[in-house]
């Protein structure tokens, strides 16, 4: 049923730190690698070695230049499903293929029910859903539902593939419905924000804005390797003559 649950026991989601993300794309490839054999498999690639490469990805990393009066900086920005609390992508689904789980709040697609009408991708402001033209159904991030509850994995590996892969710990996974959880604490401490809050979708995933610019770095310049002023005396005269 595509009606939304009135309450979810947990609000599992991601917290993404835009301050430490270096845009290495490790989360992107780890996501693709896991999920092309996972719950929503396959993540089809069309013409992968040709001139018009296309394919399904659950996670894409953009790069932006953010310029304020404090200066400019590059911000790497991973974009994936935010597992919203009021996801219109679910309610617009005519077949019941899209659903939000009452247990943990994860938004999923039942591929066997999807007719590929694409309306859910129109209803998502964030571009989280991508159509698989080969299979004819819509696909999206599962929050690695086949990893996080997987007893066959070591406990420390029971996190989404993107979180496990991140070399700078810019991605955090946890229950954002529990104010005592590590991710909730992190959001509170760093002032985590919703994307496009004006849309009213109440995303579960939060983004930590880059930390403020500081003047701490490089306030003491390193000692110059050579004297800047020309030497005087005989050696100075030799230097000048040889430099001519």
């Amino acid at each position, binding site marked *: 049923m595509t009606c939304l649950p009135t309450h979810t026991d947990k609000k599992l989601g991601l917290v993404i730190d835009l301050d430490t993300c270096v845009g290495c794309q490790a989360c992107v490839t780890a996501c693709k690698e896991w999920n092309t054999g996972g719950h929503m498999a396959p993540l089809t690639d069309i013409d992968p070695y040709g001139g018009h490469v296309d394919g399904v990805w659950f996670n894409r990393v953009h790069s932006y230049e953010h310029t304020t009066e404090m200066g400019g900086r590059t911000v790497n920005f991973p974009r994936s499903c935010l597992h919203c609390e009021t996801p219109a992508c679910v309610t617009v689904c005519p077949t019941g293929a899209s659903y939000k789980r009452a247990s943990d709040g994860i938004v999923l697609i039942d591929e066997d029910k999807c*007719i590929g009408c694409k309306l859910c991708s129109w*209803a998502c402001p964030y571009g989280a859903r991508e159509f698989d033209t080969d*299979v004819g159904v819509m696909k999206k991030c599962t929050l690695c539902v086949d990893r996080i509850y997987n007893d066959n994995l070591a406990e420390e590996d029971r996190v989404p593939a993107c979180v496990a892969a991140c070399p700078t710990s810019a991605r955090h996974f946890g229950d954002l419905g529990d104010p005592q959880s590590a991710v909730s604490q992190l959001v509170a401490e760093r002032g985590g924000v919703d994307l496009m809050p004006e849309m009213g979708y109440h995303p579960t995933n939060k983004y930590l804005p880059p930390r403020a610019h500081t003047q701490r770095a490089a306030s003491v310049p390193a000692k110059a390797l050579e004297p800047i002023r020309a030497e005087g005396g005989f050696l100075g005269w030799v230097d000048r003559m040889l430099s001519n």
Partner: protein
Amino acid sequence: MHPAFSVVFFTTATGAGYGLLALLGMLGGFHIIPADFWLGLVGLGLALGLIAAGLLSSTGHLGRPERAWRAFSQWRSSWLSREGVASVITFIPAGLFGIGWVFFGRTGGWVGIAGLLAAIGAVVTVCTTGMIYASLKPIAQWHSRFTLPGYLIFSAMTGSVLLNALCQGFAVGSKMLVAACMLLTLLGWGWKLATWRYNDQLEIPSNANTATGLAGGTVRSLEWPHTEENYLLKEMGFRIARKHSVRLRQIAQVLAFVLPILLLAVTFAPPWPYAAVPSALAAIVQFAGMLVERWLFFAEAKHTVTLYYGR
């Protein structure tokens, strides 16, 4: 938004078909138009044919059309599902109305009631179609108070012009109907102009700052995550050159509103069968114009996902 021809044709054809069905049901049920055999056969045949062709066309854009029956299940939450249910239910009174009119030659009694129910079903179905688009928040040009009335007005407009062409063709036309067609076409024109005016001045609350959560200053897309166009850009990043947009708006206005009004005005003067020619031309030209209008409805609509791509 990418203007897929299957959806452009679907909304235009079903709009005209349901408009015609609603008018035949109401005007027939209340004996305002006579229970002429040929008018009933061709009129209801055309209405139901347009509806069926449109619905079939809409399944053409599905990835898995063989599962289309599942779309009738989620009417509690989904306008698309409601549209599917309403469209199928409407076939029942419409079919009974057609049988009564064509085979029994009457539009009174139970046939009239079936006609009125078909008219109600047609209006409800057009409303559900309009709401599919009006309910999509990420597309500001659609999520506006202009969308739903627009679908209803254009359905009534194209349906009435079709009905007039048929009535003129079967020698049961009336000057009242011609005048009503002209008024509805004028109303449609005014509504479209008001919609374009609103859309051109629209201040969309979302921007690259809110999309990325980066407050203040400017956010410029430096690098996309991919080198080629992906599904998101093909489906929702469709861009139309501004000069084409202006030209297409002119073409849409001439074909959908100006020429039909002129042709309908010509219909007043000559007797049957000559009046049937401009009436039929008005319907054909208007349908072509509405295809252009509907193409623009998609092509000019901007989805918030384009903010992530600096478009």
